[in-house]
């Protein structure tokens, strides 16, 4: 039986090699107190830190630019003086060297938490802390991959130190965790090693058997042949401009900066909730105006589409006060907290005025024409926007005709649409059907949406992941979609396809 494991592909080249499971990090001893003198323990700690530093320096010497730069920054964290002073404070309370360093790292991890840009550094710090504790416990953390042969290595995730010491026998990487911007992805991309990240079911791959790693197909196929790999289509641009507009999906100021460096002709999806995921309190209108203005000002020229807060199970908004499981995605949830939605729309209007940008707003989770019109009323009272709604619930599709004259645009969220169409569990995204935009039923549904929108004289675009597949973007143009919106990193490839 062929087994297909879904995930997120990194790189463009497929490989076939033997599956090699890298064992999870050995368990470190529990933190303990010691009767040793502080001076003795502190010397022991200094030596352990120096040993980890030496390990890293050695790796830096054999690494390429990107990896070396990441490792170099890690060394600076390792020898951080404040970190050491914090550890000494724990030594003085009688904790062992390992416990003290671990606790000091935890203290700083805590300080860095709650800020997306720093979260990854907090993970780095934890990895460094483990390495120092392993040295102290005499545990070898080096990953043991045979240096001859060719392997696709499988693990939960790899730290930068792991990835940079892969022998040449590692020709592919599969992780059950991680995402497109995790260290593993960045380093694999820079080293030209194909990878599949977020492949939740990768542990099912049988060690020692052959696997096809097909990054363009976002999958690994047990026993698959290289001829089964998703072929890369090459496009040669013939036009100056794409046949339909390509916009960027963003979720932060950094994304906006990145998008502005691409050919994106605007922002097709701003995931506004990502700015406030961990807030226990609703952000004030003033702070929202400040945050949105910054993002608007940095974004690529062209219309800027703000999606209002989209609370879902995988990204609950604490200040909405919903039980995680109760936050079933529908507009009624936000309607019942109308103040929050009204405040957000006021803030978007404030930022629009402050920056002079062309701003459109759209609501997620809309299940009926009635809900769409309710949102449109509220939005038009709140500011000077073009108003749209997302098409992701099946119940809205049959009511698109009722939106004629009231709604300016529609945007299809293909991730949620596919999930609703195939009745998939959001926590089990590894189902390959969801990742396959060419599924006939899915294509039929998109065709139905495009036709209904055309009849209602409403422009319709696609802002889901599938649009980032260049060939699929061309199909969307043929179906009658007026624009696509994709991650900044995909704008170039999609634009080239749409110019060919």
């Amino acid at each position, binding site marked *: 039986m062929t087994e297909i494991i879904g995930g997120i592909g990194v790189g463009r080249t497929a490989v076939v090699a033997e599956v090699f499971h890298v064992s999870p990090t050995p368990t470190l001893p529990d933190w303990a107190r010691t009767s040793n003198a502080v001076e003795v323990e502190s010397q022991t700690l200094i030596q352990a830190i120096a040993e980890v530093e030496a390990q890293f320096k050695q790796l830096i010497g054999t690494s390429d630019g990107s990896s070396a730069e990441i490792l170099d920054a890690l060394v600076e*964290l390792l020898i951080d003086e404040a970190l050491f002073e914090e550890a000494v404070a724990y030594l003085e309370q009688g904790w062992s060297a390992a416990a003290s360093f671990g606790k000091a790292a935890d203290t*700083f991890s805590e300080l860095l938490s709650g800020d997306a840009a720093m979260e990854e*550094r907090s993970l780095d*710090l934890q990895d460094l802390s483990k390495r120092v504790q392993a040295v102290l416990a005499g545990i070898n953390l080096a990953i043991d991959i045979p240096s001859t042969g060719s392997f696709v290595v499988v693990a939960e995730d790899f730290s930068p130190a792991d990835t940079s010491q892969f022998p040449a026998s590692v020709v592919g990487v599969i992780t059950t965790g991680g995402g497109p911007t995790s260290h593993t992805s960045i380093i694999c991309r820079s080293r030209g090693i194909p990878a599949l990240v977020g492949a939740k079911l990768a542990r099912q791959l049988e060690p020692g058997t052959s696997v096809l790693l097909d990054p363009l197909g976002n999958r690994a196929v047990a026993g698959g042949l290289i001829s089964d790999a998703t072929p890369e289509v090459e496009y040669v641009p013939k036009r100056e401009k794409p046949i339909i507009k390509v916009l960027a999906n963003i979720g932060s100021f950094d994304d906006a900066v990145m998008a502005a460096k691409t050919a994106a002709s605007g922002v097709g999806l701003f995931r506004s909730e990502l700015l406030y995921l961990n807030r226990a309190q609703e952000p004030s209108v003033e702070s929202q105006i400040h945050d949105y203005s*910054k993002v608007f000002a940095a974004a690529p020229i062209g219309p800027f589409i703000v999606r209002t807060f989209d609370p879902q199970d995988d990204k609950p908004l604490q200040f909405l006060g919903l039980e995680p499981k109760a936050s079933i995605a529908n507009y009624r949830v936000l309607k019942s907290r109308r103040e929050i939605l009204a405040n957000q729309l006021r803030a978007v209007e404030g930022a629009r005025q402050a920056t002079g940008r062309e701003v459109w707003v759209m609501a997620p989770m809309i299940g009926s024409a009635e809900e769409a019109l309710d949102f449109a009323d509220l939005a038009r009272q709140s500011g000077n926007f073009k108003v749209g709604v997302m098409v992701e619930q099946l119940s809205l599709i049959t009511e698109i005709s009722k939106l004629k004259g009231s709604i300016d645009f529609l945007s299809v969220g293909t991730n949620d649409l596919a999930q609703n169409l195939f009745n998939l569990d959001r926590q089990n995204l590894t189902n390959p059907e969801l990742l396959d935009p060419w599924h006939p039923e899915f294509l039929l549904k998109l065709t139905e949406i495009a036709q209904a929108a055309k009849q209602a004289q409403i422009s319709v675009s696609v802002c889901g992941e599938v649009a980032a597949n260049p060939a699929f973007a061309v199909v969307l143009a043929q179906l009658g979609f007026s624009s696509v919106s994709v991650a900044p990193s995909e704008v170039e490839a999609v634009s080239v396809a749409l110019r060919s």
Partner: protein
Amino acid sequence: MKNIESTIAVIDPIGLHARPASQIVKAVRQSGLNVLIGRKGGKLITANSPLQLMALKIKTGETLTVSIETDDEDAAAALVAELQGLLKG
């Protein structure tokens, strides 16, 4: 010795994140000077810890105060220029 105070602007689009924080600590270490740094108007900390600098969570557009303990105004000015260069992004 006197303390020479200057201000630098955080222009880097990601704010004072890991790489500039590490580079600042390195530059200060290499200068051999005693340097305090912090948010303008806020508490200053010794610039010897990238982690503490990051924990300030300084964002793009904020201004930092740099206080350098030295009588050598040229050395101080050179260091300030170097630190500003690291926060250009």
